[in-house]
């Protein structure tokens, strides 16, 4: 009796493993970032409660632009072309700042390891992160979208110069929010680091910059009610096979994404394809802004932890000093004018 029981359990276990492995292969996206997809037998790790395991430290740093460059028409570079682009990117980043210039006073990115080429980044043969539309560009805007962009530009002009008041400065300089969390998640200027942690019912994405947390429930609960809007929207996730699908709504109008409206809906797909890589794909649906949805694919590579605390606002001396400096400049200019006029 024991022989047959154990044997049948073994057969069942093998069958389950084969089915799961087949599912992993089926989920691997076509048009992969790597032109020569590896044929190694890698098994998707699982969390203790059975979710595909996306946990770890990841970066989405890349040299690939969101939109295809003007003079490029193909979808993929050759390996040599891609290597040349990365080499030129690394040279640009390594250019030493000239002493006494503004870039030198700000800081040399390479001094603090803030540049991409000294850290982990995803090598990508794609000529653009955008994979749909096929021309690799953000689709045309609707009339409503263009009007909104123009109105926002007008409102910005009415508010005055960027150093006139804190509210005129970029959101990142104010330590309100940067590109990292989105959604969609794109690499900020540096420290494009994320930590994914999974517990039953939740996927948590900790973004290093400004320590923003995306807490994504998997329980099928409804999004926040429509009158409650948030900087990072309201996200709900579910597993479709081995892919985490996250839908986000309830955005505010305070941080438009490439001109989006607050009715934008973002659908993200996270698929771990090997030990070191999550393929992250996002789709933007915003019919009041663009004539059609558009999608991009961003490889995330495993990197080394831990994430450090980024107490952005607490350490934001630069913001106050920039404003104070602008006021001191105005005062000095006013005094010089007064002196000239009094002669």
């Amino acid at each position, binding site marked *: 009796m024991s022989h047959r029981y154990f044997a049948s359990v073994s057969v069942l276990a093998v069958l389950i493993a084969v089915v799961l492995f087949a599912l992993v292969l089926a989920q691997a996206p076509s048009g992969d970032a790597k032109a020569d997809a590896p044929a190694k037998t890698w098994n998707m790790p699982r969390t203790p409660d059975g979710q595909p395991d996306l946990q770890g430290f990841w970066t989405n740093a890349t040299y690939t632009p969101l939109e295809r460059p003007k003079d490029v028409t193909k979808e993929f570079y050759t390996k040599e072309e891609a290597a040349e682009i990365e080499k030129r990117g690394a040279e640009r980043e390594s250019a030493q700042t000239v002493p006494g210039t503004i870039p030198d006073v700000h800081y040399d990115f390479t001094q603090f390891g803030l540049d991409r080429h000294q850290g982990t980044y995803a090598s990508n043969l794609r000529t653009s992160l955008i994979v749909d539309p096929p021309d690799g560009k953000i689709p045309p805007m609707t009339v409503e979208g263009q009007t909104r962009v123009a109105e926002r530009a007008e409102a910005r002009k009415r508010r005055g110069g960027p150093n006139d008041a804190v509210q005129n400065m970029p959101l990142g300089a104010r330590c309100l929010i940067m590109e990292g969390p989105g959604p969609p998640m794109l690499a900020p200027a540096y420290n494009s680091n994320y*930590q994914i942690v999974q517990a039953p019912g939740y996927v948590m994405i900790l973004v290093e910059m400004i320590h923003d947390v995306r807490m994504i429930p998997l329980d099928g609960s409804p999004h926040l009610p429509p009158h409650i809007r948030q900087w990072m929207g309201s996200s709900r996730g579910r597993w479709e096979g081995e892919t985490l699908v996250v839908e986000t709504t309830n955005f505010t109008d305070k941080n438009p994404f490439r001109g989006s409206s607050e009715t934008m809906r973002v659908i993200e797909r996270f698929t771990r394809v090997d030990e070191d890589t999550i393929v992250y794909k996002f789709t933007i649906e915003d019919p009041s802004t663009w004539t059609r949805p558009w999608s991009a694919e961003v490889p995330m590579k495993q990197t080394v932890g831990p994430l450090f605390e980024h107490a952005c606002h607490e350490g934001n001396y630069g913001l106050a000093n920039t404003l104070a400096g602008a006021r001191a400049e105005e005062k000095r200019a006013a005094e010089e004018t007064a002196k000239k006029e009094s002669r």
Partner: protein
Amino acid sequence: MRMWVMCSTRATLAVAAVLFLAVTPAAGQAGYRAPRTADGKPNLNGIWQAFNDANWDIEGHAAQAGPPALGAIGAIPPGLGVVEGGPIPYLPAVAAKKKENFDKRWTADPELKCYLPGVPRGTYMPHPFQILQTPKYIMIVLQYAGAVRTIYMDDPGPAPADSWMGWSAGRWEGETLVVDSTGFNDQTWFDRAGNFHSDALHVVERFTATSPHHLTYEATIEDPKVFSRPWKISMPLYRRLEQNAQLMEFKCVEFVEELMYGHLRKQPSK
């Protein structure tokens, strides 16, 4: 092939003994044994909140006026305090700083500027927080300012740099999660009453489930530059039971910009 379960009497007794010990409540408070996570640890996952007046003043206090313009909204509610065994033992040399902080609390409290609250203040802010528990990392995410604490369950070594929320190593002692934190800067307060610390702060916290909906939270605070001995606070933490309980965004930096930078606005030219 042998069967998994052996039939001998000795083996049966051994198995029974193991099962008995496994289900006997360990030494948690009131003998409550929390359900287990998949890796066999007490399950502290959930959304929790303190409901007391500790954030106003961790020591016992009567009600007091707040800023006049805020009337009863900004008045300080009374509280019995959460400090165990007498007043906070400030060293005589630094006791004056506590009074100085208290006297200028309506301008000097880091909470006014939406600064990160540190430990243990983050635990008893008037906002929920979420515990996300895995074998290697236990994340504590505060709704307040989106503050995050990473509790490393594998020894992370010494803190690589000072931080606002500290550097935390966690371990299990039976039913209790013990969190040992160092690497703090000296910028946070313990409450709105100006109780403070230095960068030598060392906090040991204990989280123990005492019912399906309560944790008992204890924190022992040690700081040889500020206090003459370690001292302790304790309080219940309550599970948020609403069906759709979730952390919402409290990105308060936006709300304090006028307070912090309004005086640097360009004035219209005359």
